[in-house]
């Protein structure tokens, strides 16, 4: 294969580019924003731990916006077109997918940067979501980027990239979901500052549901209490409980005119389990909680 025409093309596939033109709304529940910004100042990699649908991705978007688009954003960062590169990791995701590969285009060979390489070059934040799902060869890349070296080996190009000064690696991890066989090794975990996320309490979750769906606060509060109670059943086949995301879905359906109990049946009960008795129990819980 010829290297005569090395072209670097934009990434496609399992990544999404976040240009962040508007500030993503995020309700802070503690000091997580301040901690992240402090970690960023030191370029300390960050690990977000928490169940699905509790706001980890929205948090990353929010802090990225603050760093790259906010009033105090450095000029170099504010000019970056794609400040956040998110990769949804899965069991077929390899180091090559993250770093890049050669592709054939007609009679030419072009190099395509992977999402991680792109972030490293340009100084973006790279967010690897559910990192333990990815193949083990991704761990080598993480290690070299998350210690004092801050470098990325690109073997196929025969070069080692020094990370852009603005680059930061963020990963997420759901300790409740992964099986025994899939776990972050201590040598990996100890390279990150860890932030724990969980579903918010009723007061905060009500505000989130209200904001995201547009329903009134009283209805949002009821949905949040539904979530709180249904989470008591998490041992019955849905270990993560009901996510805030699902409650927002139910709220959005209600805002569109779907009867509240029906909305909860579709967006909550039947989303978390296929066990008909558990579905019925959830619906009975919803029934007593809603007006």
């Amino acid at each position: 294969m010829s290297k005569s025409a090395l072209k670097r093309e934009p990434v496609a596939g399992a990544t999404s580019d976040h240009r962040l033109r508007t500030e993503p709304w995020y309700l802070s529940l503690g000091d997580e924003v301040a901690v992240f910004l402090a970690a960023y100042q030191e370029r300390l990699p960050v690990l977000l731990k928490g169940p699905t649908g509790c706001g980890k991705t929205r948090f990353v978007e929010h802090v990225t916006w603050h760093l790259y688009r906010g009033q105090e954003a450095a000029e170099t960062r504010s000019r970056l077109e794609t400040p956040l590169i998110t990769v949804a990791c899965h069991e077929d995701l390899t180091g090559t997918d993250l770093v890049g590969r050669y592709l054939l285009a007609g009679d030419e060979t072009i190099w395509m940067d992977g999402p991680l390489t792109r972030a490293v070059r340009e100084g973006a934040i790279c967010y690897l979501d559910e990192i333990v799902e990815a193949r083990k060869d991704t761990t080598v890349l993480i290690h070299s980027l998350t210690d004092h070296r801050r470098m990325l080996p690109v073997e196929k190009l025969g070069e080692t990239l020094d990370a852009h000064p603005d680059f930061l690696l963020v990963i997420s991890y759901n300790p409740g979901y992964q099986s025994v066989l899939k776990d972050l090794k201590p040598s990996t975990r100890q390279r990150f500052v860890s932030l724990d996320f969980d579903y918010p309490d009723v007061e905060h979750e009500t505000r989130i549901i209200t904001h995201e769906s547009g329903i009134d606060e009283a209805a949002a509060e009821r949905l949040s209490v539904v979530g709180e109670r249904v989470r008591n059943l998490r041992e019955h086949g849905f270990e993560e409980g009901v996510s805030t995301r699902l409650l927002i879905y139910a709220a959005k359906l209600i805002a569109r005119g779907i009867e509240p109990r029906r909305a909860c049946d579709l967006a909550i009960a039947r989303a978390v389990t296929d066990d008909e008795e558990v579905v019925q129990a959830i619906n009975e819980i919803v029934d007593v909680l809603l007006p």
Partner: protein
Amino acid sequence: MEADSPSVNLVEAQRLLSLFAQGISGRYFHLQPLAALKGEFRPATPTSDGRTLFLPEAVEEFAEPRQNLGFYKVAVMHQLGFFEFETWAFDLAEARRRVPGLASREAEPRRAQPGELEMFFACFQEQRLVRRLFGVLEDYRVDCGLARAYPGLQRDLGHAMAFALERRGALPSILGAAGLLEALVRCTLRAGAPALRAADATGLVEAVIDAARRAGEPQADVYTSAEQAIRCLKLLRTAGIEETLGVLMLDEVEGSVDVVDFRGDALLDLAQLRLRIDATQHALETLGEAGTAVSPDSLGGIIEDVPDDASPDQLTKALQRRMDSDRGALRRAFGGVSRAERSFLYDEWDYHQRGYLRGWCRLHEEQLKGEQGTAFLESVQHRHGPLLSRVRRQFQHIKPESTERVRKVSDGEEIDLDRAVEARSDIRAGLAPSERVYMRRDRARREVAAAFLVDLSASVREPVPDTDGEPEKPRIAATEDRPFWGARPSLMERDEERRRVLDIQKEALALMVQALDALGDEYGIYGFSGESRDNVEFYVAKELGDRLGIQVWNAIAAMRSHRYTRMGTAIRHTIRKLERQDARRKVMLLISDGYPQDIDYGPDRDDRRYGIHDTAQALREAELAHIQTFCVTIDRAGHDYLREMCPEGRYLIIDEVESLPVELGKVYRLLTRG
């Protein structure tokens, strides 16, 4: 719920109600029929001992199944309401500060170590009446709280109240104490005040109405109910004197007025003891873990009548006395104190009637705990070191046999020729080729979930039968197999004692566990025994999905023999566990030493066939659930019943008990090979 009948029975609704209760409250409650109460207290209406909800076996009062289920929901919510609205937080010292006139009253409890509510009732000569008045007002406070917190419950609650009021019939004239108590109950069922006033001949009904109103206010707490109960007692005394009823007879009034169906007749003071037992247990565990001097204050005030400088031993004894006293009180009242963390109802197959007995058996699940795991492991390694190494190697060899070729990938050891040709063709055609032109061999996940179900009946404590010739002397493991911790002379001394069947079973499990850990299969370790259909005991040493750790070894070491062998119920419970696993292959290995039997396994205790048929049916249910079953037994006379009980070819009789560890491994490999 049967399609043609509006009635709802507890067996069918049990799981739904249990999930409902757990979701609402965040606590697990056992659900049992009222008929299960075997103590002095046997009400006909719902009640609770603080851990178990006792409900009617069926509800058929209403025309629609939905309404009958609604009655169950209201009954459950009412019992949960005592937790949510903090009835159990009642503290007599706090009540003396808050309730006028109580500070000066001395309590005269009828038994030692009374609870806080018990002490409160004991401040009055008419203890039973005060308990009843407090109960009525507290019931109402809880219901008002439920209606506010659970707007969706208002419909069913209102329905239940209206029905309960209607069942009380026409309101009689209120002439004395009994009439006032009836008026109070009707107030709490939202009877109209005008009708009560019109029936009043005592001039005291207005005050009773006001007492109920205050208990139902949003700001009311348990001390409000206590205060209004004392107020009502005074009103009843006044009415009683006017009727020439002596004060000593006033206590009889409490039994003259019917209990409200959906609220039941909760012995609130005794139920509070149940919670105190849990707190005492926790305190005992804290003491056990602390190991050094612990002050009574640091135990959260659970115990007060000990000196501040009491030693841990003194504290432990005092706590144990407290717990024994509370358990005794509960046992007398309710007929039993469940120690199990979970309980479940299961059907049983009656081969005489060729049908299922619905909800016939109650299984109690308990997590095994202990502290001898390390010593047990050492013992196993000492006795079976070379065998363990051999079994691990054999199991590890299973893995490389199961690989699968994955084609059309972008990263692999070989070129996928078909895809490569396709890619070349695409290039010729001017199209961008796919990069997935390789293939690789992946180690396929075995996706096996296995449950080991061990018979822990009394017979397994029997010694292992003698073999011919001299008994083998215990060996010290060879150097390369010597465990990290080395051989221990004390274990060798113990080996000289006659080993029991249970010891062999535990060792076999230990070997399997270590081999399975190397293999990566998902597995659970369970034991079962029990006595009677109401008390099938199910012990969890390792749950499917749990990691292997010292707790698992402690649990296996803690396995001991119990009583009988109601196999069918234990198998059905294990099926439920395996059904929840997302595995391609599911297996259940039953390790037993005899045929299924129990004191009431069938109408005729001497009829072995009943238990065999029920077990056979349970094994068929497993097969229908795509669970492969296998029975390994050391009962040399087992052919007769095993042929009938087990699926064809799915049992093995082991002649030499000591070979159980090896044979179990062989069976497992055969059963789970791909």
